[in-house]
């Protein structure tokens, strides 16, 4: 099959993954076309270079575009599968509803739950990485770009509390556009709640490693993302307090190339190390091992 034909089948509405997720109206499923018998996800388009890549090849390459090296966003479970073994999920049933009766939010939650099969934007549990046990959380871009409302904040808080009880280190794969505005002040309070749990976990002498992935911004960056003992970042990840468009609107000038990217943050002193996706499991395993307390050995 020619690439042109593939394009016709699969890429009707290319869009930047960062744009229009929070704000887009619920996606309308295009009507099924008779030709759609070709297995879905045979091929996909790299969001950076735009080239068509076989999905198997993309998956085997850990979601890294074989043509240009761009890191595709991984959903929460793909990330866990890539980095951890023996995953055992916690708080899988937790979900909260439209706390403030915000217009349109019920429908948005319902459609995202159906589309992703997840109740909200974070998956938590226990696992081992290179044989070392840990508690971990992994945020999901498909759920309103990992924005933090009550469910996300509550599950992460419970995970840190569980880790304190079990004396486990926490590994967090962070991905979030920020607080979830449909939950108003309740979402802002999640920043304080999660921070308090991180502090308690730290006071118990336990390790917390945050892995910042693309994007890590807003209320999540200004809370548990930057409260870890070790802060790793994925190559090229957008990391910052305000989003680049907001800054450009505020200061009325174009931002320099590479601004707020992981490499920039490392240069400015806010990230311990940038880790290649393929190296991440090994790096996490080594860090967990070197931080193991004597009694654990």
């Amino acid at each position: 099959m020619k690439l042109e034909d593939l394009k016709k089948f699969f890429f009707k509405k290319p869009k930047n993954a960062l744009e229009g997720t929070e704000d887009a109206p619920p996606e309308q499923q295009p009507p099924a076309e008779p030709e759609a018998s070709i297995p879905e996800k045979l091929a996909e388009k790299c969001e950076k270079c735009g080239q068509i890549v076989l999905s198997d090849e993309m998956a085997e390459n850990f979601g890294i575009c074989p043509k240009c090296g761009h890191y595709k966003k991984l959903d929460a479970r793909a990330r866990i599968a890539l980095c951890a073994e023996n995953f055992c999920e916690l708080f899988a049933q937790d979900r909260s509803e439209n706390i403030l009766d915000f217009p349109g939010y019920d429908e948005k939650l319902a459609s995202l739950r159906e589309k992703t099969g997840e109740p909200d934007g974070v998956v938590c549990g226990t696992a081992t990485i290179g044989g070392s046990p840990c508690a971990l959380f992994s945020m999901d871009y498909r759920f309103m770009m990992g924005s933090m409302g009550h469910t996300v904040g509550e599950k992460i808080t419970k995970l840190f509390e569980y880790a304190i009880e079990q004396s486990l280190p926490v590994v967090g794969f962070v991905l979030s556009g920020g607080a979830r505005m449909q939950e108003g002040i309740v979402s802002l309070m999640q920043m304080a709640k999660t921070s308090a749990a991180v502090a308690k976990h730290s006071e118990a002498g336990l390790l917390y490693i945050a892995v910042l992935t693309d994007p890590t911004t807003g209320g999540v960056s200004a809370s548990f993302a930057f409260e870890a003992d070790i802060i790793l970042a994925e190559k090229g990840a957008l990391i910052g307090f305000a989003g680049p468009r907001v800054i450009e609107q505020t200061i009325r000038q174009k931002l320099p190339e590479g601004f707020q990217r992981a490499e920039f943050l490392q240069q400015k002193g806010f990230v311990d190390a940038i880790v290649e996706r393929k190296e991440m499991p090994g790096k996490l395993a080594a860090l967990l091992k070197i931080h193991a307390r004597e009694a654990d050995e």
Partner: protein
Amino acid sequence: MNAYDIVLKSREKGRPTAGKYIANIVDGFIELHGDRRFADDRAIIGGVGYVDGLPVTVIGIEKGEDTNAKIEHNFGCAHPEGYRKAVRLMKEAEKFRRPVLCFVDTSGAYCGIGAEERGQSEAIADAILKMIRLQTPTLSIIIGEGGSGGALGLSAADEVWITETATYSVISPEGCASILWKDSAKVAEASACLKLTAQDLIGLGAVERVICEQDFSEQFFADLKGQIAAFFREKKGVPVERLVEERYARFRKF
């Protein structure tokens, strides 16, 4: 007044800023400058003084009253060094078991190149983390705009109070309207949806007290001073471990 009227009122010209609260409530105020790392951020002012004879550390986000002062104080939008100064003063207060009083009034932490280069996220995250575990009584009072993370950075306190026509919100109604509905004209609607008024916030448990403004008269400041002093005197009697646990529970309930 509807929610949007309150939003406008919270930003109104002539509304007392943090400096006026400090002048009217804190006696013998000595301002302490700088974060000892980079600079002295004038958007956040802080120091030591007495409230009704009780030594306190006071920190306020200052918007500035006239044009020159607004520019000097960057319209109450703090840079990372402002939050780092606040943390430095809080840790000093903790060492001497002095209560910490914060006046919060900001449309949000500053977003710009320097703020990002110097780690705005890390600075706010650290301020929340340190304040929420601080081993001394803390009280934050929202006196105008309580804008998002920039306000929360000084509001991880034992109690949060708010004056009648102040607001506290995860995002400005303008930002919310433009992101969700691509229509900045829907600001009034967004103001109502966000539940950002004092009465909404008390219903949601995000604040403990609503302070009657009494047209910001002398009586208002005298009453508020009395309430602050009584609050700190009561909290000073609580063992510090319990204080910190109660603060944990305060935020855990959300």
